[in-house]
């Protein structure tokens, strides 16, 4: 009989944390998709062997501390301005792999202009857009991507069209821009989704290598704290409610 | 009369709302009150504490370094706030999860096994009310009537049916609190 001890041996290890994640425990809530997204990105950087060329930008949002977890050179950016900051980096270091890691509040509300113009200028960067339909860090307020009827701390009676307008599909808008090479919408809540997302991440970094302009990866994710659900429930809710509005798959390139 | 209180524990223990009910009760008795939470990122998961002041006079500083009473509900808070009780003051604590019990000898130390009591009451949510009961037994700065009114004020209408249960918990706390050590 094979015992567990027989299996748990260095030579049998098939999955462990990438070295490019630090030893710090993620500051995210239990079950939050930010962690998986972090991991995938760092795995790709590790696998491509580009850590010496990689510079990340994390604006405010729950992932403001990404610099504590991702073991690459990182800049913390002002709310909404990560694409401008990334432009500043990429322009003076044209050979680096520069990425931003932004929430929906950040990218699609206050940062709309910076997002659209970095894309339109075809900056040679990767934009990761974590769409959890809410402002996580500040306590669950409504985001531009909040669904109609969804309750948040600033739409406590549900987002209503009349007052608060429509959810924005900024990813589809960005896809229209000539400066954008590759646009895809993914998720990280199931093993299959994670595998697809990882492929997309790899493709995005390859695009940087080939100087193709912006690669834009939306990751539809949960915010169980903001949504006030258990992690498992939140993932189900996400499939049922978010995916119809934000359908997964490649949009461009 | 001025009573300066710190209530400190884990995020989920109802520390803030206990402080709120206490403050509201003081208000019902026409006293001046202030409720000052330590807020910040630690709120999520981590520790929580609130300074409550109840007084017959206008309250000046809502934050303090030394307190008349410290109500301590976990070890971290014990480490932080034991030393902040004024000499001759009061420390009330729940020993659940406490590894190093209080050691000061110049203050009155009370034990309230609120966790136990709440479990006995088959409702862990009333934990903080049990603690409140303990405090009010030791320092009856407001009476149950005030608390009743305070509860009603601070709970949304649809939760008013819980008032009775909360009262029960407060009474249970009043009964369960034990003087462990008198100031020497």
């Amino acid at each position, binding site marked *: 009989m*094979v015992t*567990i001890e*027989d*299996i*748990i*041996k260095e030579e*049998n*290890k*098939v*999955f*462990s*944390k990438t070295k490019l*994640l630090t030893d710090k*425990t*993620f500051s*995210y*809530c*239990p*079950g*939050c*998709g*930010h*962690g*998986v997204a972090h*991991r995938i990105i760092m795995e790709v950087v590790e696998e491509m062997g580009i850590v010496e060329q990689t510079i990340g930008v994390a604006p405010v949002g729950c992932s403001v501390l990404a610099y504590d977890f991702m073991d690459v050179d990182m800049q913390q950016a002002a709310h909404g301005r990560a694409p401008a900051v990334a432009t500043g980096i990429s322009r003076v270091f044209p050979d680096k792999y520069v990425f931003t890691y932004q929430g929906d509040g950040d990218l699609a509300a206050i940062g709309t202009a910076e997002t659209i113009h970095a894309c339109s200028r075809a900056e040679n960067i990767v934009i990761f857009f974590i769409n959890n339909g809410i402002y996580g860090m500040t306590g669950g307020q409504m985001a531009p991507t909040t669904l109609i009827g969804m309750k948040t701390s600033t739409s406590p009676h549900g987002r209503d069209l009349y007052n608060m307008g429509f959810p924005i599909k900024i990813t589809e808008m960005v896809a229209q821009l000539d400066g954008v090479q590759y646009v895809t919408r993914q998720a*990280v*809540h*199931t*093993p299959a989704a*994670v*595998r697809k997302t990882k492929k997309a991440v790899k493709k995005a970094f390859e695009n940087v290598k080939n100087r193709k302009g912006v690669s834009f990866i939306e990751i539809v994710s949960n915010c169980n704290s903001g949504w006030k659900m*258990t*992690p*498992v429930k939140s*993932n189900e809710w996400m499939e049922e409610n978010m995916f119809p509005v934000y359908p997964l798959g490649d949009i461009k390139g | 009369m001025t009573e300066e209180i710190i209530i400190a524990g*884990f995020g989920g223990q109802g520390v803030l709302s206990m402080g709120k009910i206490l403050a509201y009760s003081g208000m019902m008795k026409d006293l001046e009150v202030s409720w000052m939470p330590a807020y910040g990122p630690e709120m999520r*998961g981590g520790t929580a504490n609130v300074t409550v002041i109840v007084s017959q006079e206008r309250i000046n500083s809502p934050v303090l370094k030394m307190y008349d009473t410290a109500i301590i509900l976990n070890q971290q808070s014990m480490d932080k706030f034991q030393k902040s009780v004024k000499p001759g003051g009061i420390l009330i604590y729940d020993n659940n999860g406490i590894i190093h019990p209080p050691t000061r000898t110049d203050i009155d130390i009370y034990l309230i096994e609120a966790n136990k009591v709440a479990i006995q009451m088959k409702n862990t949510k009333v934990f903080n009310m049990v603690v409140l009961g303990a405090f009010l037994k030791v320092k009856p700065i407001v009476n149950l009537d005030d608390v009743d009114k305070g509860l009603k004020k601070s709970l949304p209408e649809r939760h008013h049916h819980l008032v009775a249960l909360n009262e029960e918990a407060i009474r249970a706390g009043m009964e369960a609190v034990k003087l462990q050590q008198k100031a020497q």
Partner: protein
Amino acid sequence: MAKIRGAVVVDVERCKGCVICVNACPTNVLNMSKEVNGKGYSYSFMENPEACTGCMSCSMVCPDVVITVYRMKVG
């Protein structure tokens, strides 16, 4: 035919008890502990270790990257 056996190690102190791995495991290996860890979370453990194929489904979705997966051919 060679069978594949797997095993996972959960970094118990870093597990946040989100249950996502339990849900993701196709062979129902994992479950949540009765006890809690230092941070007060119940954590994931192999309830049915024999069923583990080392498929990495759990580790793929663990938001805190606390699962290490091992796999070997048996027989």
